[in-house]
Structures are given as structure tokens and as C-alpha cells.
């Protein structure tokens, strides 16, 4: 009971002080809008094509939103040493890190539905497998948040965390099958592509929206769940090694 009081309190504080601030909310709206407009400018396509780019925009919104949020909140608190107070609290480290990431996960998943809401006004979304879309958004949000956490632990400054994030984010964006199908990538790049959780998240979203997934849904889901577990365990180990040294 006491642990859960602490969990909810950390989550609520982070929501109030970091996530539900105007810059974050406007980012959540502007980012998907900008990606969608870029697509239309580049291809000259009409609104009818929104459905084809929707999985990509959702995936990018989640990836950039969650990794940026963790880079700020965890690194900022570590630098100001307020994170030490959390480490001194009698709550298990696993619960503490889940509390610190839950806000980003929730906001990341919610942000993913901003482009869906926009698309709903422009095109017909019938035939979308909603439960699969929700599962994909949540799983991708969890894995991206944990990736952001892992990066934030390695950084000392917020700008360092943002820079490190880009070393992961951009290769993932170009190799996850969003712009080029994975099957058409050079053979030596394909293993790398399959190592990224974004590849499975995007594929699951393609399956949910357009039924054009390249892999079975269960495989995408399992790969995403596996990457969440691996990233979380690695993050906990990094915290213990670096911050409780």
C-alpha cells in the first residue's frame, strides 16, 4: 500500500510538473501535423492517402515524444540531485523507475492518437483493428520510453541525453521499414533493422490500420514485449552501476 502511494505520487508529480505542460502538449499536436504535411508536400498525395502514412506518423510521434521526455525528466532531476531523494525512499528501485516512466508511457501512447483523431476528420477509418492499434501504441510507447530511460541514465546533461537519443532515433527511423520496406534494405542492414523495437511497432501498426503487416501480429507483440523487458532490466542495472555505485 505504502509503495503504491509513492508510485502514484511520483507519477502525478511528473504529470503535473513535466508532461502536462504547454510545450509538451503543443509538441504532441504539432509534431504529427508537421510529419503529415511533410508527406503531402513531398508526394503531392491527397487526403485519401492519410491512411497509408498513419502508422508511420503514429510510430514517429511515440518514438520522438517518449525518448525526449525521459531525457529531460530523469537527467534534469539527476543533475539537480532531487533524484537522490527518490533513491533514498523506501520503495523498490523497479517500482521507482516504473513510476518515473509511467507518465511518459501514458503521454506517449495518448500522443499517438492525435494523428488518428486528425485522420478521422479527413478519411474513412473503418476496418481499422482498434484493439491491435491500441496494443501497438502502448507497447511501442513502453519500449521507446525504456529506451529513453536507458539513454538518460548514460547522460549527465539534458543536451547530452537529447544528442545520444538522436544516435538511436534516426537509424531506427530509416531502418524500421517506414521509408523503405525492410525486405528492400541491403542484406547487411536487415539484422540491425530487426534489432529495433520500432520495426515491430510499425509493422503492428501497419497491420492494424492497413492489414499490410510483414510479420505475424504475435511475433511483433512478442518482440516488442521482449525489448521492453530487456531495456528495463538494462536500465535498472545501469542505475545500480552508475547511481548507487
Amino acid at each position: 500500500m505504502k509503495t503504491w502511494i509513492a508510485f502514484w505520487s511520483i507519477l502525478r508529480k511528473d504529470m503535473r510538473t513535466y508532461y502536462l505542460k504547454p510545450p509538451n502538449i503543443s509538441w504532441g499536436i504539432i509534431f504529427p501535423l508537421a510529419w503529415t504535411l511533410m508527406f503531402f508536400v513531398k508526394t503531392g498525395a491527397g487526403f485519401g492517402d492519410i491512411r497509408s502514412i498513419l502508422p508511420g506518423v503514429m510510430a514517429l510521434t511515440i518514438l520522438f515524444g517518449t525518448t525526449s521526455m525521459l531525457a529531460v525528466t530523469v537527467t534534469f532531476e539527476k543533475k539537480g540531485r532531487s533524484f537522490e531523494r527518490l533513491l533514498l525512499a523506501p520503495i523498490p528501485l523497479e517500482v521507482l523507475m516504473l513510476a518515473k516512466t509511467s507518465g511518459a508511457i501514458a503521454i506517449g501512447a495518448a500522443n499517438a492518437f492525435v494523428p488518428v483523431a486528425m485522420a478521422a476528420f479527413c478519411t474513412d477509418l473503418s476496418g481499422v483493428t482498434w484493439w491491435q492499434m491500441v496494443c501497438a501504441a502502448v507497447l511501442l510507447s513502453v519500449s521507446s520510453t525504456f529506451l529513453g530511460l536507458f539513454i538518460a541514465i548514460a547522460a549527465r546533461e539534458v543536451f547530452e541525453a537529447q544528442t545520444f537519443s538522436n544516435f538511436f532515433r534516426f537509424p531506427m527511423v530509416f531502418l524500421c521499414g517506414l521509408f523503405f520496406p525492410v525486405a528492400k534494405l541491403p542484406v547487411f542492414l536487415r539484422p540491425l533493422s530487426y534489432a529495433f523495437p520500432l520495426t515491430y511497432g510499425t509493422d503492428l501498426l501497419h497491420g492494424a490500420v492497413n492489414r499490410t503487416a510483414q510479420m505475424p501480429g504475435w511475433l511483433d507483440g512478442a518482440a516488442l514485449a521482449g525489448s521492453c523487458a530487456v531495456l528495463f532490466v538494462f536500465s535498472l542495472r545501469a542505475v545500480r552501476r552508475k547511481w548507487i555505485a
Partner: protein
Amino acid sequence: MAPETSAAIAVESLAKRYGDVQAVAGITFEVGGGEVFGFLGPNGAGKTTTINMLTGLARPDSGRISYHGQECTADVKRAQHLMGVVPDESNLWPELTGHDNLVFCATLYGMTRRDREERARELLAAVGLKDAAGRLFAGYSKGMKRKLAIAAGIMHRPGILFLDEPTTGIDVASARQIRQMLVELGAAGTTIFLTTHYIEEAERLCDRIGFIVDGRLVCVDTLENLTRELEGRHVVHLTLGSDAGRFIEPLRARFPNVAFEAVGGCVVRARTAAALPLAPLIRFFEEQGVDVMEARVMRPSLEDVFVRVTGVAAERIRKEKEQGGGKGGGA
């Protein structure tokens, strides 16, 4: 839990190395329940590393840590509910108000809504921040931040309180108020583990004092026992009507059994193992045509013990800390 008779904190052969530096080299001590224990040493001696190991922010390389007889070296987290920590920096959340910071800290220890609200009100009043409760922590002065940090450390009514340099770099009035709070906490039975570089602070607050130098605990005892060792030494301070420095060599030549040094601008410190008659000294200065404004026989202080044990002048440590920590509050 263990019986009341066991020490609140027991440390045995605790060691920690960072790369080539042996930060803490096998220290052993106990702190009794309700005791105020001072932990003194020069900068970099291992004070903060020791606190970090005791509170779970650092892992010891070897040794044992027990709280109330319960060993928890490998998992200090099990004992974290017993302790409150006030680190050397006031590390609360700048974007929360004073009140919200306290309430948030209380939730980390699982306190119920009613309990934490009542306790926050009580502590804000106790530390004189009632009127500033609704202001953001970021806008607080250094002294206000320190007081709130201490309030946050005791929100959950811990039995053991760790304080790392609680009065460094704050104004005199705030420092005095904090010391009063610590006296009251000690009187109420809270075990206090205090590091400070203000020797007078340790002298005034602590039941026992441990000196750590280069990671080694060189002595632990009560103030009375520590100063008793020096009671055989006689120290006299003579305040002159002119600069003291130029008389040191002639004094040494005239009184070879007495150690002389200039302290500040006009004070000569004379030290000797035997009782020191003042008349020959005063006569010496009369011959030199210099007035002796004041002659004081000095009692051995904790500062003398500190200098003897650490080989470092307490004044130097104080200045170093204050340069690093802003304007000093003094003791």
C-alpha cells in the same frame, strides 16, 4: 526489530574505493539510540562517502552496516524507512512549492493524506516558513531552502537522521535556527549523524565525535574525553598593541621552551607543556615598548583536538567550504 539495547547504527570495517582513491578505509564505529554523533574531518576525508554508504546511495566494497542490530549491508533499502537524510545540497524540487515539496516527500514514505498535510503544516510553522509555504522552492533563499530540506528529511518522523553539512553557506540566523531544531530533535530521542566543518557546531550539538582523516577513523570519543588529552598543554593568547609577527623570533630566542606563533594580526599564541608564568612575557613586551592589551589563558577546545588529530587548520577547512558553498553562516 532488534532489542532497544543494540546500537542505532553499527558500522564494522566499512571500506569504499573509487578508482585509485581509497575514500573510506575500513572504519568501525557505533552510534547509540538517541545519540547526536558528529563526524568531522577535512575536505575529501570520506564523510559524504560514509553517509552515502549508510543511506544506500553507495555500495560498500567491504564491511558491515547494521541498523538496530539488523544487518543490511547488501540491501540498505530495507532500512531506509527508518532514516531521514538531509544531503549537503538542498535537493528538493524547484518547480514545487514549499508545501508541495514536503507533502510529496511524505508520500515517498507512504504517509496518508491527512497525516502528511498535518505534518507539513506543523513543520512549515516550526521552521518559520509558514508564510512562504505557497511559494516555489526555486524562489527560496539559501537559508529557507536548507530549512525546508531539513523539514523534508524529518517529515516521516525518522528515528535516525543523517545531516551532511546542514548549516554550510547560510546566514547566521538560519544556522542558529537549524541548530536549535537539531537540539530539539536530539532531545526528542532522534539519533543524529551529523557531518560539519563548523567545529563549534559539533562542540555545541554532539554527544560524541568521530574524526575521519584520509578515509580512516582516527578517534571517536566524547568531547570531554577528547579535550582531556590536551588539558596538560597550556596555551596563552596575548593581544598586542602592534603587529605580532615581528616578535616571534625574538620570543623564541628568549623563551626556548615555549612555542610561539602569530595568530591574526596582533595576537601571539604561546604554548608550553608546563604552566606558563605571564610576568616574564609581559616584561618582554614592555622592554620592546609594546603594550599588552589582553592576556587570555585558553582552555583546550575541540578545534585544538581537530588540528592535532587531522593536522589541518580548522579555519582553512571553513574557508574552503564557504568558498565552495557561498556566503558562510558561521557557527
